[in-house]
């Protein structure tokens, strides 16, 4: 297979569509022209890209939950509740894990069991099984834009059905929905499959319908240093832009140190725009997403509200375009709709109180420089490995550990990099593996962690990493002994 970061030829694309649409019976229903007509009938307030562009201009921070249940009517009820009682600005449709693995047969059993037991037996909405018209009835029932959120390595059919179904935003990417979400799937395959998704979005764009695309920022959600997730987000933005995507949201999972979080969101926006311009994609609108803490949560709901609020603070002070909101049930299981709305309202209160006071200071500026320099080290090496082609370079970068995501399940990930918090709780690199930071930047990271080690009177080791994994769940940021 000959992977390249090159816009897929329309005929080639159309030829492979036939195969994709035949993967499950509901694929037959997809009709591009007719879907475009449906999208064009939507009022502006139901369109993701438009709402994001407005928010970016107004420096407003929007809020969005995660939510999905197996049965259509329940799902609509859930989203309506989150819109009305949760004051959500944007809505999701979270897809179940069988669909994410293209196991539509098992998803079907999940739907049937859910009906039989009158209780959700799937952890999301199986959109492929439900098909295009069911999706449209979701869009029709709500007054805010709705996005598909999932974690699907091969999301081609899902994208076809959901785009035709009227969703105006589609999360994911060839790296971010592979390495944290799969074990055995090669990057060549997922990058190619996501080029398909992006090409599809680009096709809609050509036909006058803007589909927002969002690389999944937080990756494994567990102590990911900003430079790693930034590098992935920028690569996926470049790949998407090449296929004709014009509206991209880049995301980042809160790390918990305020300065680092604000600097991360700001630098992510600036760097993504810089790289897109540099490679000739001049008309892409970039917005940012702050994910409230994505690692293990405290079980206690009151404490969970504290974590949720702290994420809201980071998002608001950074003026992220949107915040993906957690719930007080996070540590326990898929939230009830009430708990989900509580997370939203708590977030809304915090971001509204903070809307007028962005954080700008020398510490943030200094941290932005660090993050940018680290990210550039990685990206430059990726381009080098690909001899200028970022698709090729990315595959090589994962093979060699130049790109390395901590705690990822994929065997295509080196897993040699170890992160740890520094003495102020910023996430730094304890063991770089083969991630090619300059000596200066490595020394900076080492010095930062050493400072903590001295404070804690112990050597920096894997135990420190474990302690950091548990820390927020146990009510701290830094996992002190």
């Amino acid at each position, binding site marked *: 297979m000959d992977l390249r970061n090159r816009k897929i030829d329309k005929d080639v694309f159309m030829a492979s569509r036939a195969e994709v649409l035949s993967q499950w019976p509901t694929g037959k229903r997809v009709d591009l022209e007719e879907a475009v007509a449906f999208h064009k009938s939507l009022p502006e307030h139901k369109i993701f890209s438009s709402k994001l562009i407005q928010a970016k201009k107004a420096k407003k921070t929007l809020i969005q939950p995660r939510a999905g249940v197996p049965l259509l009517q329940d799902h609509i009820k859930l989203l309506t509740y989150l819109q009305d009682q949760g004051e959500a600005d944007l809505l999701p449709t979270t897809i*179940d*894990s069988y669909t994410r693995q293209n196991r539509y047969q098992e998803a079907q059993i999940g739907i049937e069991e859910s009906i039989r037991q009158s*209780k*959700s037996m*799937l952890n999301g909405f199986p959109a492929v099984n439900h098909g295009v018209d069911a999706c449209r009835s979701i869009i029709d029932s709500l007054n805010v834009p709705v996005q598909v959120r999932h974690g699907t390595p091969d999301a081609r059919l899902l994208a076809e059905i959901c785009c035709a179904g009227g969703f105006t935003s589609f999360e994911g990417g060839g790296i971010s929905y592979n390495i944290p979400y799969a074990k055995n799937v090669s990057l060549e395959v997922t990058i190619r499959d996501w080029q398909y998704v992006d090409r599809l979005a680009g096709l809609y764009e050509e036909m006058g319908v803007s589909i927002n695309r969002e690389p999944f920022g937080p990756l*494994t959600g567990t102590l990911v240093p900003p430079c790693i997730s930034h590098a992935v987000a920028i690569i996926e933005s470049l790949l998407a832009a090449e296929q004709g995507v014009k509206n991209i949201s880049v995301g980042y999972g809160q790390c918990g140190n305020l300065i680092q979080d604000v600097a991360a969101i700001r630098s992510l926006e600036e760097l993504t725009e810089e790289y897109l311009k540099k490679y000739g994609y001049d008309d892409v609108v970039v917005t940012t997403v702050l994910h409230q803490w994505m*690692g293990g949560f405290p079980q206690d709901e009151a404490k969970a509200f504290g974590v949720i609020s702290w994420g809201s603070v980071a998002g608001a002070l950074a003026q992220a375009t949107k915040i993906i909101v957690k719930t007080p*049930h996070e540590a326990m299981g898929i939230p009830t709709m009430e708990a989900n709305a509580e997370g939203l309202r708590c977030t809304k209160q915090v971001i509204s109180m903070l809307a007028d006071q962005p954080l700008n200071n020398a510490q943030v500026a200094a941290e932005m420089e660090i993050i940018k320099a680290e990210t550039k080290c990685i990206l430059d090496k990726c381009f080098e490995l690909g001899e200028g082609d970022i698709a090729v370079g990315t595959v090589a970068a994962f093979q060699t550990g130049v790109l390395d995501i901590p705690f990822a*399940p994929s065997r295509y990930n080196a897993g040699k990099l170890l992160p740890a918090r520094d003495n102020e709780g910023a996430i730094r690199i304890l063991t770089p593996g083969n991630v090619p930071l300059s000596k200066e930047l490595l020394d900076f990271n080492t010095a930062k962690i050493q400072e903590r080690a001295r404070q804690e009177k112990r050597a920096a080791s894997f135990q420190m990493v474990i302690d950091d994994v548990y820390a927020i769940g146990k009510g701290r940021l830094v996992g002190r002994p």
Partner: protein
Amino acid sequence: MEKKKIVIGVIGADVHAVGNKILYHAFTEAGFDVINLGVMVSQEEYINAAIESNADAIVVSSLYGHGELDCRGLREKCDESGLRGILLYVGGNIVVGKQPFEEVEKRFKAMGFDRVFGPGTPPETTIAALKEDLGITD
């Protein structure tokens, strides 16, 4: 004394890898011989690994909510494959949503699990239970 062997892994289409990596580390430190199958493990993989290694226990993790569907029939398959009576644990976020633990426990025990653990169970608890059930005295 010979080390006790345990097979661990995350069942079904579940990719939550963090807890699994930490459990591997903790069980090994605690003196077990651990066969770690990682994430996305099928029932057959657990059984094959247990047969091959002559394991004393299978420790199933499920985090993502489909545990109830994924775990059904595991005990029966163990029985059919000659693993009659092998110690079976399950833990993590094993059902969808926040449900009363007693009910969840009952359902999984009825499926044939010897012990059932709720969200966020610390490794020490599991280790203590394994030692008790496998007759290890420190």
